[in-house]
């Protein structure tokens, strides 16, 4: 298993290189540069700006320059946020995204598994339909509708929570965004759980257990739950990646200073270094999360060996 882990980590390098190169080329091919503004700057000023950020070099030299500083752990200077290095920006946004995304994921797993189990045990009944109706809210309404509705109800009408923003790690500011992400994640986890539990309940060993006269409760808790959870584990990876790194809508609706906001602002401002820095981060996070999920999978499923 260690050698497997090692190989997977090693795979990060070509992945990173490929992703960086593709993004790099796409960014530079996109019309408009970081210093194009409503007021056109004079040629001399443009030259100064480009020199300051090494944009006057040929593209391949800039690329090599970037890779070189990347090797030293330096993601470069941001164009859009001129006073900050990309390292600073990422270091500030990552904890916010981790808290919101990771926190909501934990809650989602609990709720999703519960809903999925209830629905599976009452398959094709009114309870099943209703639970899935509830669980699927997050995949039937766009998040940019759910979010404002949450704000309207809980922040403006009831006045229980702030309408957005971020204050240190004040819990009040986390509740609504986490609720929104939970809606989204529960719909996925709930459906997967329902599907996989139905499958497991129909498998031979459960039938045997039932034939032996074990109560359903014991069967589900002792025997069915663990194998049914396997597919749930396998979705946690992608869900975590999207909740942490790409919760753009959530961050925009609730004005949160997270990673998604940086990605979108970086791209629209042609902040090459910021975008590439985030690409590096997202890629590494994605690879690590997928690896963690695979390892967890192996721990749960005795059939899998690496």
């Amino acid at each position, binding site marked *: 298993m260690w050698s497997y882990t090692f190989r997977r980590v090693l795979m990060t390098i070509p992945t990173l290189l490929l992703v960086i190169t593709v993004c790099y080329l796409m960014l530079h091919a*996109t*019309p*408009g*540069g970081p*210093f*194009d*503004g*409503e*007021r*056109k*700057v*004079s040629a*001399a*000023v443009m030259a*100064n*700006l480009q*020199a*300051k950020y090494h944009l006057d070099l040929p593209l391949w030299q800039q690329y090599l320059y970037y890779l070189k500083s990347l090797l030293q752990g330096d993601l470069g*200077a941001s164009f*859009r*946020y*001129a*006073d*900050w290095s990309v390292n*600073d*920006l990422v270091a*500030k*946004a990552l904890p916010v995204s981790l808290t919101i995304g990771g926190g909501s994921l934990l809650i989602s797993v609990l709720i999703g598994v519960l809903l999925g189990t209830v629905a599976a045990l009452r398959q094709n009944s009114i309870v099943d339909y209703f639970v899935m109706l509830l669980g699927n809210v997050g995949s039937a309404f766009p998040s940019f509708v759910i979010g*404002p509705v949450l*704000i*309207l109800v809980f*922040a*403006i009408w009831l*006045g229980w929570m*702030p*309408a*957005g*923003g*971020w*204050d240190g790690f004040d819990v009040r500011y986390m509740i609504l965004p986490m609720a929104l992400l939970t809606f989204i994640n529960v719909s996925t986890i709930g459906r997967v759980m329902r599907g996989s539990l139905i499958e497991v309940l129909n498998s031979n060993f459960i039938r045997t257990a039932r034939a032996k006269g074990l109560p359903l409760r014991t069967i589900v808790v002792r025997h069915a739950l663990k194998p049914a959870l396997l597919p749930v584990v396998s979705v946690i990876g992608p869900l975590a990646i999207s909740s942490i790194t790409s919760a753009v809508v959530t961050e*925009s*609706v*609730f*004005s*949160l*200073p*997270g990673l998604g*906001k*940086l990605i979108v*602002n970086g791209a*629209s*401002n*042609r902040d090459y270094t910021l975008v590439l820095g985030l690409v590096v981060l997202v890629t590494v996070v994605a690879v690590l999360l997928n690896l963690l999920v695979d390892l967890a999978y192996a721990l749960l499923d005795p059939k899998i060996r690496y």
Partner: protein
Amino acid sequence: MTHKTALRMVAASVALALAGVSGAALAAKVPAGVQLSPKQELVRNNGSETETLDPAIAESVGANNLTRDLFEGLTATDADGKVVPGVAETWKQKDPTTWVFNLRKNAKWSDGTPVTADDFVYGWQRFLDPKTASPYASTYGTFVLNGLEVAEGKKKPAELGIKALDKYTLEVKTPYPVAFLPDVVSNLNLGPVPKAAVEKYGKDWTKPGKMVSNGAFVLKDWQVNSKVVLEKNPQYWDAKNVQLTRVTYLPVEDGYADVKLFQSGENDWVYQLPPGTYDKYKAEFPKDIRNAPMLGLRYYSFNNKDPLLKDVRVRKALSMVIDRDILAKKITADGQVPAYGVIVRGTSGADVTTYDWASWPMAKRVEEARKLLAAAGVKPGTKIKFTYNTSEYHKKMAIFAASEWKTKLGLDTQLENMEFKVLLKKRHDGDFQIARNGWVADYNDATTFLTLVQCKSDQNDNFNCNPKAEELIKQGNASQDAAKRKQLLTQAAKLVMEDYPMLPLLQYTVPRLVKSYVGGYSLKNPMDRYRSKDLYIIKH
């Protein structure tokens, strides 16, 4: 703005040219009878995250709002947009190209050291140094002797026309007479910079705990994409007239999110209302709604080099049929004023011009426009391409314009929306037919708007050129007589607009919600520049 346009600004405001403005302290004047709240804290949304807190490289409106609170230049502008003394107590135009500023001796940095003439010399040299690469270097550099040459790297920063005669006396040389220099130096790009802090911390000098500033406020906290917190600067020379103890700037971009924060009480100051919501919020928050015109023009650029649009008759027809009244009243519905010329109301240095057909009934305008199109050989069904950047506001206006051209002229408009940066690129490259455009004045003078339609101006996206108008502008700027200058510039504006180089639509307003207990908010501020120094919280 080019060197040439700057030359034309000679002799703008007579009042400012008068030497020796009195140095009385003009600050947050709380009218008699107003009871102040014990808690003097303000939260104002700034529209987006600031790109910097370094006054030399600040470019956006938001960044300038912050640097205006943190720093103070030689002069400043008050709530009504009038020039008032800043660090300089008095100033004098010694000869046409030499200015002397007398600094007040009680101005201090937030670390307690005095603000001296050297701080300005350092600040200006740093601002124009190519290594600093300030986007505004050529805009303001043109007003200082050798400014452009320094920005272009042709001369050393030490050769810049600014000199400390002694610790509290500053001499500024201009390349030509600039009568409105006191107005220009209120911009913080031309402010003082604390050399010691910059040299000690490098790029990090603008961070909380490291920044040293000389304005009414100091930097307390800065969370990117979350907030910038300022606190009252006890070292500020006029601190007794500063009421607010804490100002929090938010970077909320989404207009709806902004309003929701206002409604839930976390924000006192909505940056700008989303399009089409003005009437609604006016009814809902009658005490908080604030709306005033500012020096800005919404217009559409015609590509004058385009095969179809190079015919002035086509451009005229397209302009004639747009019903600006409906656009202002029903589409944007936020109190904006119809515009028929390049100069907007409230601009000094030229009068507003208009078209004779502006007062005609629409039916007559349509009839005339159809004739023009027929004469130009443009048949109904002809396709025109309209380019705009993604935004609710621009989308609505674009759909309106397309509908006008379709129903009144039978033209088939293809809308094309794109990201802002792509639009900028296309506009600058002339890769469009008709494009969304807009301009907000950098300073209050007609020349800032005339740059939009002048030959070879950086800001001319229409690619038009009228040599006669150009000549009039030149004559106007050479004139020492303010009335004569105004007449010539007005004439030029009228003449160039008869070519229909662009399609003026509306004059900007700033519709926003500001809590009724925020005092000192003037509706006569044409540049939308509000110092927190002038604001206070009324007891509520």
